[in-house]
């Protein structure tokens, strides 16, 4: 059995807005191994969050996943669909994107769970925290009992149900068992007095406590892969440290894999074994933490690392990346390497030769992939173009 729980291939998500087509995620490849934390790091607008949403098929219109495969390892599911969807099965893996909608929905919970950046807006302010978690538990419980007919409360809530509920309000959706399980989960994520806290509303929780509650909700389905999208960005450092400790602990004990998305390189360093760096919708560099942090090849990765002040060893001056994050509007994106106009090492072929940066190339180490001309050749300072020269090459084109 191979040790990848998730293999993402060629994932491309675009938004078709009134201003034009936005290429949010372009041909993204990565693997997530059993029991590891895989980090995705990038600046805002680099496509990190859209990648996360694409994995669990939650991209909303006007966005659409236009191509790509998300292979998830599940022998039973593969067996079940081998005949009905032969294209979607490869050994023990199923391509989540080619499975029927109901199955995909069923997978959210036992296969994938997500926690988002802002816990306050992820929870319903008018329902108690305990009930919201219990609801997630209930959905999972029912889904397991009857995998084909999973329904959450809101789905299929028609006039009939409304009448029944108003006449018989005791006909609750959530069973007592799920309520109890919700309290257990709250205790599991380190919330003191879980029984009492379960009856409180989100506004009575602090930010850190709410994020813990979100984690509890994500654990409801005992997921194989936990997708954490900026889970600590809204929190203070001391609370961030608590949540990171909690995630590490849960990941080890529950044997989950985690996809951790953040812009904070420190969080990546603490949590992840392997990292992908995203820029303008592409994964520009990917490898182990050591590869990416100690031997970065892509000038963007180098620039990112040079931009952050070190708390232990302050450099007198930072070396930021010049310029701003590029527009992802299709019409405004050229054929050249997207980083070329900010890149201090850009050469003529970066601006003209499309092939060179199309596919990520391996450095001598096969697991360290870089989408840059410099992946397999040495940098020669004399070849680098100044900003004026860059303009010239672009306008010549």
């Amino acid at each position, binding site marked *: 059995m191979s040790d990848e729980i998730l293999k993402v291939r060629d994932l491309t998500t675009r938004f078709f807005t009134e201003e034009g087509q936005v290429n949010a995620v372009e041909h993204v490849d990565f693997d997530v191994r059993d029991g590891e934390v895989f980090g995705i790091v990038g*600046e805002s607008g680099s496509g990190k969050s859209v990648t996360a949403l694409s994995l669990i098929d939650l991209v909303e219109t006007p966005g659409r996943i236009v191509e790509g495969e998300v292979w998830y390892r599940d022998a039973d599911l593969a067996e079940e669909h081998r005949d009905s969807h032969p294209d979607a099965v490869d050994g023990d893996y199923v391509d989540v994107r080619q499975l029927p909608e109901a199955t995909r929905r069923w997978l959210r919970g036992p296969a994938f769970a997500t926690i988002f950046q802002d816990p306050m807006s992820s929870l319903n302010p008018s329902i108690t925290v305990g009930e919201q978690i219990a609801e997630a538990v209930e959905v999972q419980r029912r889904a397991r009992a009857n995998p084909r007919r999973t329904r959450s409360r809101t789905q299929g809530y028609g006039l009939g149900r409304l009448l029944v509920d108003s006449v018989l309000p005791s006909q609750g959706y959530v069973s007592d068992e799920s309520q109890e399980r919700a309290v257990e989960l709250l205790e599991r994520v380190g919330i003191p007095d879980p029984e009492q806290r379960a009856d409180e509303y989100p506004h009575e929780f602090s930010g850190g406590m709410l994020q813990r509650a979100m984690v509890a909700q994500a654990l409801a389905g005992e997921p194989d892969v936990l997708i954490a999208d900026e889970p600590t960005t809204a929190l203070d450092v001391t609370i961030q440290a608590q949540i990171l400790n909690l995630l590490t602990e849960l990941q080890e004990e529950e044997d989950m894999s985690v996809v951790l998305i953040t812009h*904070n390189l420190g969080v990546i360093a603490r949590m992840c074994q392997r990292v992908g760096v995203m820029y303008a919708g592409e994964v520009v560099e990917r490898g182990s933490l050591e590869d990416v942090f100690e031997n970065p090849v892509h000038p963007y990765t180098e620039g*990112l690392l*040079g931009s952050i*002040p*070190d708390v232990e060893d*302050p*450099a007198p001056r*930072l070396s930021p990346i010049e310029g701003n994050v590029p527009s992802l509007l299709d019409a405004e994106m050229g054929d050249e390497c997207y980083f070329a106009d900010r890149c201090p090492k850009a050469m003529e072929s970066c601006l003209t030769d499309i092939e060179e940066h199309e596919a990520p190339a391996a450095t001598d180490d096969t697991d360290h992939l870089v989408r840059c001309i410099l992946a397999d050749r040495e940098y020669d300072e004399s070849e680098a173009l100044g900003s004026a020269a860059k303009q010239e090459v672009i306008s010549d084109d």
Partner: protein
Amino acid sequence: MTEAAPERESTGDDALVEVRNLRKYYDDGGGLLDRVLGREATSVKAVDGVSFDVREGETLGLVGESGCGKSTTGETLLRLREATDGTVAFDGENVFDLDDESMSSFRRRAQIVFQDPFSSLDPRMTVGAIVAEGMRIHGLPKSDPTVATAAELTVEDGVDRTVEVSVADDLDRVVEAEEGVARVPVSVRKREADEEGGYEATVDSHADLLDATVEEREADLHVEVTVTGSDGAIRKKRAGDLLERVGLSADQVDRYPHEYSGGQRQRVGIARALALDPEFIVLDEPVSALDVSVQAQVLNLLDDLQDDFGLTYLFIAHDLSVVRHICDRVAVMYLGKVAELGPTDQIFENPDHPYTEALLESVPRAEVGEQGRRVSTLAGDVPSPRNPPSGCRFRTRCPKVIPPEDVEIDQDAFREVMNLREEVEAGNLDPDEVRETEPAAYRKEAVPGIAGENAGVVDEALEAVADGDFETAAETLRDRFETVCETTPPDDAPDADGEVVACHLHD
């Protein structure tokens, strides 16, 4: 590192801003209904007695978790909010009782840059108007009567007469004065191929705002330089210059904020703060909303501006690595009070306050060695500023609470006892549960680390809890375990070096 850590930069010891005992309470619950119901007004003590100096030319960092009163301190000391109590002296004068004229001068000399570059710029004004707004309000450009005006004359070939120049008195509105003299270059030449002959004069810089005319007198020429630009035009020119200074382009003065990215907007905010030639700028989380690569650009810019204009900064931030990078001294705030204040290197390398230690410990570093580092975190959240803990405010989370001298107990166990005491005092324990589990068994569960006499006292208290008598229980525990951390607030007044360590361990 030793205590003799070298100073980052030599800063003058003269305090530009002296904050003493500053308090800002927000009243709450004082409405009519509350009064009818006889409820007492409680106030949120956002800033509760803060004292520090900002020295001329330095960058003082103000760090802490959200809700600890950093931004309120910054805004109150600029008198953007009225202080509840305390004084702020700016250049020796108390900001809170300035007359109108001095207040207006203070408003020019002290500026602020806000955190959110999206909500701090008026979307209906062009960036030129935004930057120039302060100048307009303060009636600038104004001519300074003490500034002399002069011209640098260039006489080209063909002019064979003596040339005299007179310069308008208000030239300094357009031209920056250097050493008390506003100087402008003027060239005089003979008109070419002109029937009437004659001469012409041009101003070589600021040509769009200045004009020069030549008058032929008997033996010599007289050139007169006048300011022709309107106040609006002069302000716009200056706004353009400022935009250029902060890394934008001067021809963008007519653009609107929505045309800019977050980093560029923050630069506009900085240009606005610079427009009145301030001495002191409060930077309220100026880079928190920015991406790391852009954040580094803005930090470098702030560094350069400080050198060029001799600015003094109060830098409010929650990101400790940014603070370490830019600040000369750092004040760490916790729940409305200063916990520790000292030179940056000392704070980061030899923190004395347990809260500073915990903060530093929590920061994830972007390096491979960070992988899998387990951090001993602070438990719980910051308590409510409505009802802050007595004594030392950090004591409810502090890993180093001081046990009473006559009680022998190890640190972890004491922390657990303190947690139990808090629960008892808040009446949070369930008497039935304590009764059912038996007080001794409950004690082993809640406070496993104690034995002997201490255990006896806790058991006794828990028995009282089992009977529902929380008061007796709390008193029993208090008699035995009361610590100096809860009875006495630590001393947080700056010492002779302006340093603070508000902790009993330090005494």
